[in-house]
């Protein structure tokens, strides 16, 4: 909310510099986010008077104005249609720096030399009103600087208010904090109304159908107003708050709203349609046109002001088009009401409108200030519009709000804040904030009805703290809490996975978790999707149900940026619709992928990545966590290529899938190069991790290495050969490693050559060569028998 700095000084009688006002308010919770000088675009701008207007040859949109600025008379080219002889206008002279970055220099327009410009409000940075030049009040002195003439050396303070502080949404509200900080009281604006003998109640009665929704409704009549512009002193406060002056009637209601925080509405009494106000819920399907010209179809969620038969306003949000104040208006029906915050919240949501009024009502205005606000407005109608204020106010206030009593125990305040504030100081602060305080322990406080946010002791403690300043609370210098801080297994596990993967050269990616339902269907149509009811955009309408879903766009993004060689992993969640208990379902997963070429170097040439690179990454993890031997079963995964996709299980527990991305699926995600990926369930893997290795004594007896090469059918798995060797050798084969695998010219079709290195060793004794030879022969026999292996010549 924007408020004029001068206005705050006026209300508090302070003379603090603007920075002090802004800083002190910020440090009490009324955060001033920006300070803008009203005069920032008024340097070298003076009051001028238009003396003459001539057409310019060959131009129909611009004219040549002769303008006096006191010291001289100059010719100024002007394109505004509303310029006229005799007007007082703002004239920007050489060196003026206008809004939008325009600096006034000597220029030639259509052959006419011009070194000044007649300005609109927009060009002076006051509003976005570009409609024409700004016609100033006639009594200004020609030649005077505009800032002086307008008494406009002000600052606009822009406050970012917290939603609990409805009371701050007015000049008085902010001034109240300022006054409390300075220890002064507010100069409340006054009024002196000459009430007519004719009564408002002769013209209007007020009935409220739903008194929970509308707690108070005041109405009064002002007759014989003359519509015209409002005076500059009033306009400039509206302009500072970003409200465009319209006419005296509308400006006065806006002005009192800014001053008091109570929204007001002025109806044209003659267009109101009856002498009765009825506040009721809208009928289902009722049509209503707000004064912005938009037609709405209503439900009972919307609270309506009616004339008994027809709606004339959406209560607390916006008036109706039909009863709006017009240039011809002479008689006014003035409404100041109190509406329930949650009712207004629903109303304005239904209407899709946020207005100055709705913003205040939905946070909570002061119902007990309605009459004061009405009086202030009536006074201004009398003074500025020549209105005759009828006697009395029709005030329907079925359940008056009484100030709440909340007590503050000084000891409790000191204990919560950890600061030694005195009870006297607490009372002083609360008193300055206009609480009625009495007693000393507890301090009994009557909470003013503009402070809806104060309901219990802690709220008073906060008031004391924020006005005294958080700097007055010392920082504790001891640490407290439980004696021991555990690190949980799950967190350690995730850290370790991350460490192992990055050590192996994999980069960690991080997904935002949202995805597109269509992408999910392209990947795995059968997997349930958790739908977002109010997506921010169409392409982020579900939560990812697989990490692959968010990884493929990452691959595509990188390829599009010519990062073709990727080794990536992600630790994150996949999300599914709620289970029967109603709780959301989430699964922690690990995704690993490789694509493009291996990193390579100048010495080891890169080669295309494949499945076995991926397997290597997983073996690193297996080694680190001592997972049991995995088994790979051919699986049908829609997005993996048939024959190259496997379900991984460890000790019968399903742990995930791995394989080659199906090229057709890849193309749907704009990926045209082979991708190999694995998605694993972290909970299964954590459960199988062995965090307790047991020491194996280092060997003391010599090893007997033997190589073995064989030709077997291509369908035989190397893992099975190795398992068989281990099994036949019993405990004597300390390692069996594949060192060569070959298919090609020298090997018959459908066969492969497999060479393994076996290291025989016993932990208990030296093996004799006969013993080793015997084992080797047993192994050979078993391989021949089981795999029909053709053993090739011994390597030695």
């Amino acid at each position, binding site marked *: 909310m924007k408020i004029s700095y001068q206005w705050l000084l006026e209300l508090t009688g302070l003379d603090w510099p603007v920075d002090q006002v802004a800083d002190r308010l910020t440090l009490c919770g009324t955060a001033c986010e920006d300070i803008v000088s009203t005069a920032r675009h008024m340097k070298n701008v003076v009051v001028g008077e238009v003396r003459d207007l001539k057409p310019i040859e060959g131009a129909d949109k611009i004219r040549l104005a002769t303008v006096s600025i006191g010291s001289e008379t100059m010719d100024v080219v002007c394109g505004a249609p509303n310029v006229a002889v005799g007007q007082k206008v703002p004239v920007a002279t050489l060196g003026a720096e206008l809004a939008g970055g325009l600096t006034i220099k000597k220029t030639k327009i259509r052959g006419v030399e011009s070194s000044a410009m007649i300005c609109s409000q927009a060009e002076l940075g006051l509003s976005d009103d570009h409609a024409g030049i700004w016609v100033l009040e006639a009594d200004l002195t020609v030649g005077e600087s505009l800032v002086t003439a307008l008494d406009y050396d002000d600052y606009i303070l822009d406050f970012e208010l917290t939603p609990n502080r409805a009371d701050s949404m007015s000049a008085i509200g902010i001034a109240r904090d300022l006054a409390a900080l300075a220890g002064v009281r507010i100069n409340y604006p006054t009024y002196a109304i000459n009430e007519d003998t004719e009564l408002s109640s002769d013209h209007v009665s007020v009935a409220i159908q739903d008194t929970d929704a509308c707690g108070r409704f005041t109405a009064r009549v002002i007759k014989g107003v003359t519509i015209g512009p409002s005076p500059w002193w009033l306009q400039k406060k509206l302009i500072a708050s970003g409200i465009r002056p319209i006419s005296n009637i509308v400006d006065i209601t806006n002005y009192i709203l800014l001053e008091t925080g109570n929204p007001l509405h002025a109806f044209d009494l003659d267009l109101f349609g009856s002498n009765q106000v009825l506040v009721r819920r809208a009928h289902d399907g009722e049509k209503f046109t707000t004064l912005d010209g938009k037609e709405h179809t209503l439900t009972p969620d919307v609270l309506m002001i009616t004339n008994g038969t027809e709606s004339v306003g959406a209560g607390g949000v916006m008036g109706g088009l039909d009863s709006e104040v017009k240039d011809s208006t002479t008689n006014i029906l003035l409404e100041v009401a109190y509406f329930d915050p949650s009712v207004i919240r629903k109303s304005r949501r239904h209407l899709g409108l946020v207005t100055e009024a709705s913003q205040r009502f939905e946070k909570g205005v002061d119902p007990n200030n309605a009459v004061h606000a009405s009086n202030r407005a009536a006074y201004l109608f009398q003074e500025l519009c020549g209105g005759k204020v009828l006697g009395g106010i029709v005030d329907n206030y079925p359940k008056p709000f009484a100030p709440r009593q909340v007590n503050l125990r000084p000891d409790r305040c000191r204990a919560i804040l950890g600061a030694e504030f005195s009870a006297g100081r607490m009372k002083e602060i609360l008193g300055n904030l206009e609480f009625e305080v009495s007693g000393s322990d507890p301090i009994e406080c009557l909470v003013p009805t503009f402070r809806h946010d104060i309901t219990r002791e802690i709220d008073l403690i906060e008031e004391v703290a924020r006005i005294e300043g*958080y700097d007055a609370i010392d920082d504790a210098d001891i640490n407290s809490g439980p004696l021991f801080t555990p690190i949980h297994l799950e967190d350690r596990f995730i850290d370790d996975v991350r460490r192992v993967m990055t050590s192996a050269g994999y980069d960690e*990616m991080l997904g935002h978790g949202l995805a597109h339902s269509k992408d999910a269907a392209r990947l795995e149509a059968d997997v349930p999707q958790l739908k977002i009811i109010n997506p921010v955009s169409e392409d982020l309408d579900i939560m990812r149900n697989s990490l692959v879903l968010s990884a493929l766009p990452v691959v595509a993004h990188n390829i599009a940026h010519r990062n073709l060689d990727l080794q990536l992993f992600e630790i994150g969640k996949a999300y599914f619709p709620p289970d029967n208990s109603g709780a959301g379902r989430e699964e922690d997963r690990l995704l690993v992928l490789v694509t493009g070429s291996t990193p390579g170097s100048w010495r080891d040439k890169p080669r295309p990545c494949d499945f076995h690179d991926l397997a290597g990454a997983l073996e690193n993890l297996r080694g680190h966590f001592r997972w049991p031997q995995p088994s790979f079963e051919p699986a049908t995964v829609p997005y993996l290529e048939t024959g190259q996709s496997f379900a991984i299980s460890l000790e019968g527990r399903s742990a995930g899938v791995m394989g080659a991305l199906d090229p057709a699926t890849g193309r749907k995600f704009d990926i045209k190069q082979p991708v190999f990926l694995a998605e694993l369930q972290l909970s299964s893997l954590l459960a199988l991790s062995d965090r307790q290795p047991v020491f194996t004594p280092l060997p003391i007896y010599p090893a007997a290495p033997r190589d073995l090469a064989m030709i077997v059918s291509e369908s035989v798995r190397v893992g099975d050969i190795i398992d068989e060797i281990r099994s036949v050798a019993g405990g004597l084969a300390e390692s069996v490693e594949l060192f060569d695998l070959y298919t090609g010219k020298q090997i018959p079709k459908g066969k492969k050559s497999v060479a393994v290195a076996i290291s025989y060793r016993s932990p208990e004794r030296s093996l004799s060569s006969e013993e080793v030879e015997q084992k080797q022969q047993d192994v050979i026999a078993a391989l021949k028998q089981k795999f029909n292996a053709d053993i090739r010549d011994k390597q030695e």
Partner: protein
Amino acid sequence: MSLAEEIVQLEEEALERIGSADSLDSLGELKVRYLGRKGPVMAILKSLGQLPPDQRKEIGARANALRSKLEARFEEAARAFEETTEAASIDPTLPGTGNRIGAVHVVNQVMDEICRTFYGMGFEIAHGPHVETDHYNFEALNFPPDHPARDMQDTFFVEGDLVLRTHTTPVQARELERRQPPMKIITPGKTFRNEEISTRAHVSFHQVDGFLVDEGVSMADLKGVLVAFCKAFFGEGLKLKFRPSFFPFTEPSAEVDINCFLCRGEGCQLCKYSGWLEILGCGMIHPNVLETAGYDAEKYTGYAFGIGVERIAMLKYHINDIRLLFNNNVRFLRQFL
């Protein structure tokens, strides 16, 4: 000159020459000259047969000793040459080979560092679900239904009357129910807000919340712990500013600014010329929150704070577009090895 004297002289001369040889080639020439078939040592050995038997044995032994000694010295000298030659041929500027390491995602790096810093102060890590109930995300945290405070947190709703948690504070509500005081916990993790994606906002971000509940916890304790954190994380000599603010689940509430670590408070683009950077929100846990969890708020008090990880990461590394964090372009990721 006797043969014995000749041998001594020969040895001195040969050793001196070996010592001053300046290349492997000249060393080879010397070797041929001294130990070759036509060399002096060979000549002596060949002449042994013409010597009287009493001298033959002695001279023979000396000549043979000389031969072995020279051979050894030649070999030694040659090896020295080979070693220097090989060392000189290495280009140390060639890129090293072997496995490169990967980068932990910068958001996780920052989140881990925040967690480690708080762990050092005795905070235990706890996690909770990302898909939350209205109760834990809002109600239990003193957001009444249909309250303007809910507008502060643009919420994604998902099927089953659930929400994507808008902060990690629901974990606080869950832990309050699950444990007994004293408890001192941080809750790092992913959160979601229904915001248009732009350079400054994203649908997802990460947060580290923390809280302490015990008897006699005060706002002074909160200030102490956050000052200690900021100094440990951002560096000593840092100034902090606690500004009153509003969060439904804390009261009194504060936002904490630190003086800009780039310009040290002078004013720069990073701090938008204010000299200050807003880095976290905090406050005393609202008694309504403690009471909802079944605590006697007269007996137990607590503080809580919340830190936006992306914001800290962006400030710390001068990252100007939050979307870079989620695009996962490896050129970006690898800048944070």
